[in-house]
Structures are given as C-alpha cells and as structure tokens.
C-alpha cells in the first residue's frame, strides 16, 4: 500500500528580486513500512520537502503539487491536522531540537498529553516505556534530567522517543545522524530500523550521506536542485546508479576512491534557486553532457520500479 504519494511538488518563495524555487519538482512514492531515502547536496530542497509534508514551511512559501496525498488525505489542506498525529519529525541536531530549559520528562509529557487523554501517572509510564524502547538505560531517572546533561546519542534517542510518543506512523528523519559520531550514528540507524519493523512505521530518511542510504533504506530518491532525478530500490541506486548525478555522489564517497588517488569532488556548484532551468539541471556539471542536455528537459527512463531523468539512453558510466 502506498502511504505517501507526491507528484511535481514545488515550493516557491516570492521575493522582490524574483521567485526563489526551493523545491522545483519532487516526486515521491513511499510504501507503508518502508524506509525511503531522500538524498542530495545541501540546498537541493530535501529539508523543504520534509517541512512541506509537515505544513511547517516558513511564512510566504507557496506550495503546489499535482498529487500531494498521505493515506488518502490531501496534504495541501490536512497537513496541520496530520502533523503530530500521523506524521512526526526527527529533527537534525538533537541538541538544538530539545528545549534546553525543560526536563526530558516534561518534554515527553508535553507530547503525550497533546495526543492522549490519560492521567499523569499513566503518561509517565508510557514515557518511561518509550524511552526504554529507544535503548536508553535508566529511563525513570532520565525524566528529571535536562538535555545538556545528556550525550548527543542519548539526546537523539530522546528525540526519537518523542516522535514515537506522538503516535505517528510516518516519521520524517531529517539528517538524524549528521550531528553524531559515526559509531553513535550507526547505533541510531540500527535503532530506527528496529523500530520500523517492530512498530510498522514508515520513514522518510532525509540525508546527504550515501552510507546512510546503503545502511537502512529500502528505496531512495535522489534530488538535484529541487528536482527528483532518480528513484529506485536503494540497492540498485547504490549498485548501479543511472543518473550521472547519483553516480557522481557515489563516486564522491571517500572509500570509493583508491588510496593515494585524488578525492572525487563534483566540480561546479548547484544552480541558484532563483535561476530558471530550461534543460537538464545537472548539465553544467555533468561529465557525460550531450549537446542536447542544456536546453531540452530530459526524458524519464526506466520502469515503475526504477526510473531516472536523463538524455543518456543507457544511463551513467
């Protein structure tokens, strides 16, 4: 069953100097129970896409989409209702995502009492249970602690417990491991994977890190300059990327480069969000750019399981 379906989502900010297109055209199809990666460089519209799903875009944002549906409901009108009920956010940088002046117990309880009508004692029991479910030791004692008394990994587990406390079944994880040490990040990913299978959750994993996609995602969408350029099974994208940008992202991973060789950075820069794009957005940086690329929008190739938008008929490589 498809839980989230988005077609041609765009987010635009009108400004005095012209429209800023934070998201140009994003397509997403997420099966219930899946972990779906949303990959791209910074500034490609990943986080804005997530915020659009939550209905939490900054003031002045204009959202448009051909299809914008969550479990049969129109997100354009229902986002505020679904937020916190069905859709929750695991924010990047847990230290910033927790209120520094409130205890963990208070922050858990604020979420719980927003969504449940239970007496305080029962809510506290739930809070303890959820904190324990995220692998936190001694959750009862934790309730009286403040965020600054916790390590980054513990903070991120608290943030996950809060997301679970909402009772939502769709989690938007915005760079959940970026602010953490590699080992702690791996533990958090394993925890998410476990929670997804135990509780039947669905996750949109926003990341710039191909390793995260490889570690936990079932499927993935690659974004470039606010456009979806490739969507498919995570294994297929990691194994044989078809869009030249996906290939470049993979090649830029440090372990993809043999020792002693120069690291493969992607030359050039992402187009500015104020810039109009006529052909393929990646053309100026593409190593296999054809004469047709800069001026003609690329056709969508592949099948319903794995598709990409590119002029090259055989894909990258």
């Amino acid at each position, binding site marked *: 069953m498809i839980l989230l379906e988005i077609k041609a989502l765009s987010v635009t900010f009108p400004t005095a100097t012209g429209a800023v297109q934070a998201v140009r055209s994003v397509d997403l199809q997420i099966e219930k129970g899946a972990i779906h990666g949303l990959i791209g460089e910074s500034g490609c519209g990943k986080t804005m896409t997530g915020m659009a799903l939550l209905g939490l875009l900054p003031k002045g944002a204009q959202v448009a989409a051909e299809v914008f549906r969550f479990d049969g409901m129109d997100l354009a009108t229902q986002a505020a209702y679904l937020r916190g009920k069905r859709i929750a956010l695991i924010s990047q940088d847990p230290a910033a*995502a927790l209120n520094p*002046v*409130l205890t963990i117990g208070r922050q858990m309880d*604020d979420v719980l009492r927003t969504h449940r009508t239970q007496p305080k004692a029962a809510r506290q029991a739930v809070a303890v249970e959820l904190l324990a479910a995220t692998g936190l030791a001694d959750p009862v004692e934790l309730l009286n602690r403040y965020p600054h008394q916790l390590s980054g990994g513990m903070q991120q587990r608290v943030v996950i417990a809060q997301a679970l*406390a909402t009772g939502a079944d769709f989690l938007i994880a915005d760079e959940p491991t970026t602010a953490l040490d590699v080992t702690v990040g791996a533990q958090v990913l394993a925890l998410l994977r476990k929670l997804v299978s135990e509780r039947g959750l669905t996750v949109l994993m926003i990341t710039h890190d191909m390793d995260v996609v490889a570690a936990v995602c079932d499927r993935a969408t690659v974004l470039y300059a606010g456009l979806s350029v490739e969507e498919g099974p995570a294994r297929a994208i990691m194994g044989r990327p078809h869009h030249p940008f996906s290939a470049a992202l993979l090649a830029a991973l440090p372990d993809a480069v043999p020792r002693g060789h120069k690291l493969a950075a992607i030359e050039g820069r992402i187009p500015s969000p104020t810039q109009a794009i006529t052909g393929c957005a990646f053309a100026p940086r593409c190593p296999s750019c054809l004469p047709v690329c800069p001026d003609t929008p690329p056709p969508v190739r592949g099948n319903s399981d794995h598709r990409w938008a590119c002029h090259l008929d055989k894909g990258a490589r």
Partner: protein
Amino acid sequence: MDLARYILRRAILSAFVVVGVTFLVFVVAQVVPSDPAALYAGPRPTAEQIEKARVTLNLDAPMPERFVRFAVSMASGDFGVSYKSRRLISQDLGVYLPATLELAIFSTLLALLIGIPAGVAAAARRGSWTDRLGSLGSILAVAMPTFFFAMLLQMVFASWLGLLPLSGRLSREISVSDPLTFVTGFNLIDALIAGRPQVFLDALWHLILPALTLAAYPAGIAMRLTRSAMIEILSRRHITAARAMGLSERRILYGHALRNAVGPALTMIGLSFAFALTGSVLVEIIFAWPGLGRYVSESILSKDFPVIAACTLVVTVCYVLMNLVIDLTQAMVDPRVALT
C-alpha cells in the same frame, strides 16, 4: 544540588554587598561637611550645647569603634533618632516602609503581568496590529513622564469615570472613623487579618492608580525585551520540533519559548523594583502616599543624616533580597543559570 549551591553563593555575595554599603554609608557620614552634633543640638546652638550633643551621639569615640557601634545598632534595627524630629527612626520606618513596599511589590507584579504577556503576544503575531499597538503602547509607557501619566490616570479614572479613588491609601471613612489595627503596616494584609473584606477592597482600589503609574516604565521595557527575546527563540529548532509534534501554540509560547526568553525582562523588572522603593517620590506626592520616597527626600533636604543612613540600608537590604528572589526565579526557569 546545583540550585542550592547557586543560591548559597548568591546569598553570601549579597551579605558582602550589605556590609559594603554599611561601610560606605558610615564613611560618607564622616566626610560630609556638616556637623551632626550641631544639627542635633537644634537651631542656633551654643558651643556648649554642641559639645554635649557630641557626647550624646558618641561622636568623640575613635572611628573604628564608631563604625562597629554603627553597624551593630543598624543590624539590631536600632536606627537611632532623627536629628530633625527627635522621633525614633525605626518607628517612622515601620509606617513608611510597609506603605512603600506594598506599592512597589504591587506595581512590580503589574509590570510582570502586563509587560511579559504583551511581549509574548507581540512576538507571536509579529508585524500584526497587535504587535504595532503593543509597540506603540510600550513606547508611550516608557516615554511619558511619571507625573503626567499619574495625572492622566487620575483625570480619567478618578475624576471622569469615578471608578477609582484619587489618592491616599484608604478612604477617609475607614482611616479616620474606623481605622485598621496596625499589624504589618501592609493594608491589604492587615485588612485580611482583621477579617474586613471591604477594607481590603478599598485598599486595593487605592493601590491601582499609583501602582499603574509606577509599573508603566518597567512594563514597557519588559514588553520590548520579551518581544525581541521571544522572536529570537521562536526561530529556534526546538520550537519547530515542538510544532512538528503537534503541540498547541499556547503551550509552545508559554510553556516552551517564554522560559527561554523571560530572563532579561525578569532582571529588568527586579532592578525597577529597587528603583520604586525610593525613586517614587513624585508618585507618592501626587497620590498622597505616605511612603519612603517622601521621607528620604525630606530628610535629605534637612541633612537628617541618621534617617538617610537608615533608609539607604533598608533599601539596600530590600534590593538585595529582591535580587535573590530574581536569581532564584531565573535558576528555576532556566536550569543552566545555576551552572554559571
């Protein structure tokens, strides 16, 4: 634990402040170019009378001894006798201090209850009419001279609308024909102790206008401080996170954001409380409020040094206590304060 240690540290620091001010007050008394003995001896004294006064006041003892005597008697609440009226200063203070404290505390509460919610509302609806009206109000409140605002309030609420009394602490029917038994000197409390609710209300009505006058300035500044701090906090990620979890806007504003934002406003209001203790002379005169401000300013004009010293010390102690209360509140609102 952190909290207890923090408060203890603050309390010790405060004690030093009190001792320091005591010393300063004593030193100032030594260098002021007027002879206390001559003042004490009355108008046009003879040399003999002055000499006698010098012995009575212990002015011939060596300076360290006099300081210790001075400090000990201040600490025991024996402030001596006014040079001018020959009345016991502690007796005068017993009347004026409660009146001033009642007014200062009430106006501080008003400033908190008006300034902070106004700041929150303005920040929550930034750029709206609420925000603009609030900003205009705060500028008016800060810029308008006290005496003008006081008279404006008197004109509108006492003369035109007749809703509130013009001046005084109690209606004449009560204060003259059926006065309150003096227990604490705080009319509100004494009325409650005496079990006379209509007197309590009467005292409350008398408090409102002078308290509003005094509250205007701190409320206006607190509003600005709260507004700008709230705007900053509301853009933080944990607020977005709280919204994403579906928390109500009210809980986000008052439960989550305000705790982070209220610090500067609390500090400011604490300082203004200290100012209200003696700086409210104009308000006391306009509203015929028998308070400390008038008492001090009269004693300054007549160089009545013991009164000045006593008032300075009493105000210092009140101020230090108020700061302790503010520090404690801040540490409870923001646990990180206790760590610094």
